């Protein structure tokens, strides 16, 4: 390819940033892997970013000890990693008989925003409880987020609800988030895409710790909701961060469920230059996750390099 590049082509040659969510190492953490080991594995992929689950990674969440904080910053420094997204939860059905009020939800998000900021994160993903089989978030999500927009701006953090299977891109839940962004004009709320929405072949294992009961009830979900990658066009301008969900990549670098060969060219074409943060969610036999994450990085980097080679070379190298 020669000649002057169009604006879109220039964008297309921006590079992905690579990261890993410690969710990938679920069950390994605490049984065969320490937080420091996890840093080593993330850095060993050539990543620049690390994503944590606040209440999982911080042993005294919501209040880290000063020793933990010292260690956190020492690890970031030693392994040359930057904090990307911190995952958090708003446990709306907080007891069996009572739901959180909007005020409690607001306090939860404010607490997590402050914690994420202390640790150096740029994104906060709150996971709200849902009220129905369509996974409609508890209505407190909107006031709880809105009352925190000023705080998020002060702390320079973007709050990102996750577009996660079985909720697709074109869905009232996603529409409601976009309407909120348009109404408030905020720069501190956006969408996080979880690539599990593109899954197009059935899962026979699931790493989320769920059991037979779930499996039977949610069978169609586990077959993959097969969102067409073209739907990214609708929302990409609201998407500063992507969780690269996957379940199994074999020795030939073939992913059995997620169509990276369509996702990656589309993200490149759309000029996405944010993180792809690995979220392995497959077999939880000890240590399998470490190698699976490495395979995903090899696969995605290869697809990115192929796209770059086919579109005028890697200008950002």
């Amino acid at each position, binding site marked *: 390819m020669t000649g002057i590049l169009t604006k879109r082509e220039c964008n297309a040659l921006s590079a992905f940033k690579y990261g890993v969510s410690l969710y990938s190492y679920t069950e390994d953490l605490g049984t065969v892997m320490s937080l420091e080991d996890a840093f080593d594995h993330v850095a060993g992929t050539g990543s620049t970013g690390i994503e944590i689950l606040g209440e999982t990674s911080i042993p005294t969440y919501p209040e880290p000890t000063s020793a933990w904080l010292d260690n956190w910053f020492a690890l970031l420094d030693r392994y040359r990693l930057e904090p990307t997204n911190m995952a958090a939860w*708003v446990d709306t059905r907080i007891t069996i008989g009572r739901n959180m009020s909007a005020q409690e939800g607001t306090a939860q998000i404010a607490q997590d925003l402050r914690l994420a900021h202390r640790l150096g994160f740029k994104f906060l993903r709150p996971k709200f409880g849902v009220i129905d089989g369509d996974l409609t978030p508890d209505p407190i999500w909107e006031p709880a987020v809105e009352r925190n927009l000023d705080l998020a701006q002060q702390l320079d953090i973007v709050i990102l609800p996750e577009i996660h299977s079985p909720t697709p891109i074109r869905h009232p839940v996603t529409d409601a988030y976009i309407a909120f962004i348009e109404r408030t004009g905020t720069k501190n709320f956006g969408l996080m895409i979880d690539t599990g929405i593109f899954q197009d072949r059935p899962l026979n294992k699931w790493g989320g710790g769920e059991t037979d009961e779930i499996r039977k009830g949610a069978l169609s979900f586990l077959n993959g909701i097969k969102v067409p990658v073209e739907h990214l066009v609708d929302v990409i301008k609201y998407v500063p961060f992507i969780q690269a969900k996957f379940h199994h990549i074999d020795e030939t670098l073939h992913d059995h469920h997620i169509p990276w060969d369509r996702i990656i060219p589309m993200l490149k074409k759309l000029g996405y230059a944010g993180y792809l943060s690995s979220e392995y969610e497959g077999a939880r036999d000890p240590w399998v996750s470490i190698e699976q994450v490495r395979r995903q990085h090899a696969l995605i980097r290869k697809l990115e390099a192929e796209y770059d080679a086919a579109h005028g070379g890697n200008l950002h190298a």
Partner: protein
Amino acid sequence: MLERSHIQSTGFHNIGPVGARTGFEVRIRQPNYRSSRLSLIEGVDLVIDGVEYPAEQSRIRVGDREYTHAEMAEETVARLYVGTFFTVIVPKEGGLAPGVHHVASSIRFRHPYFPPQFQPVFVRDARHATIILP
């Protein structure tokens, strides 16, 4: 570090005075991928050698603190952290006999982000474990 199985080898023992045991304890790894407010755990049921020990009759120890089933349900601040265990304290006159037992556990998790029809989720495990001292 904890054993991968939910039920831990160490910590499975009788309680109460020797010769007049009042029950037994089992250590369970918090197996979920995120820490959990105690109020999100609706109980831990055990089956030992086929005998059921339902959650409602046991207590749970987290760190130094013990909770009844009703107290757990209202505890929204204290958490079971990932990488830690909790102890199920089961009353049983005479305790368990020394030797190997088949132990099954089922944790009733409430995940607020799961649809209402999937509540609670039962997270199960089973294994052999050994009582050493009568």
